[in-house]
């Protein structure tokens, strides 16, 4: 059952990811954003299959919720028209495709050659309690630094969004 769900979720995630970056039917950024939301939902499903329930919930709440709403807000604020197909730089497209396919090939070959030492059966259970303890004991300092980072980001966004940017 879980194997079937893994195949389903990963296939849907890859399909929606492809439609995010290279939709053959439309080049509207709104379509890309909505397919990205779907990709994140399927990824949350994969996280549940990996028994990372807390991370799955955070993925839905923060990524699929907050971040993508921000994206859609900005798209509608900017009133972007469809990305017109202009000046397709053939050399650039070919170079990009070759480099990306090369990277995919390198990672695939590395993964195929890797010996699965020490990676036997899945063991870790979804331990939200243990995760919280770890976050507030062992990783307390990074946690506080991240909270300061969020504050800095918030102030920076307010400053950047002011009408007259000196």
């Amino acid at each position, binding site marked *: 059952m879980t194997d079937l769900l893994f195949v389903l979720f990963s296939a849907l995630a890859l399909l929606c990811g492809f439609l995010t970056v290279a939709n053959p039917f439309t080049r509207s950024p709104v379509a890309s954003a909505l397919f990205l939301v779907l990709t994140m939902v399927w990824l949350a499903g994969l996280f549940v299959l990996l028994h990372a329930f807390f991370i799955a919930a955070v993925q839905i709440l923060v990524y699929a919720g907050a971040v993508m709403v921000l994206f859609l807000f900005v798209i509608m604020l900017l009133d*972007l028209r469809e990305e017109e197909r202009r000046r397709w730089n053939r050399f650039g497209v070919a170079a990009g495709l070759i480099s990306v396919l090369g990277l995919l090939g390198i990672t695939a070959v590395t993964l195929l050659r890797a010996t699965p030492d020490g990676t036997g059966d899945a063991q870790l259970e979804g331990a939200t309690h243990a995760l919280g303890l770890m976050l507030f004991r062992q990783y307390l300092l990074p946690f506080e630094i991240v909270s300061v980072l969020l504050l800095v980001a918030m102030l920076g966004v307010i400053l*950047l969004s002011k009408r007259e940017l000196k």
Partner: protein
Amino acid sequence: MTGMHIGLEHYLFVSAALFCLGLLGVVLRRNLLVLYMGLELMLNASNLALVAFSRFLNHLNGQVMVFFIITVAAAEVAVGLALIVALYRKRQTAHVEDLASLKL
């Protein structure tokens, strides 16, 4: 179901493929916002790899890392989108090809 056992390597394959899709978006698309979505896709692919490692190596460090990555990515998206909006106000465009004033 016994013929195929889903292991760490399957998750890593999916993660690598998603990462390459995000990179493809960053390399090929010319719209700044869609380019940014490609970046988000790459971050999500790395998150998947980290959670899979955490599950199969029996250690919670990977999940804590994912938690931090999601937080920092949210901050990064907020700042990046504010920059795009400021840029759009000044230049009336969100296409990378129109932003070539630093080109020699």
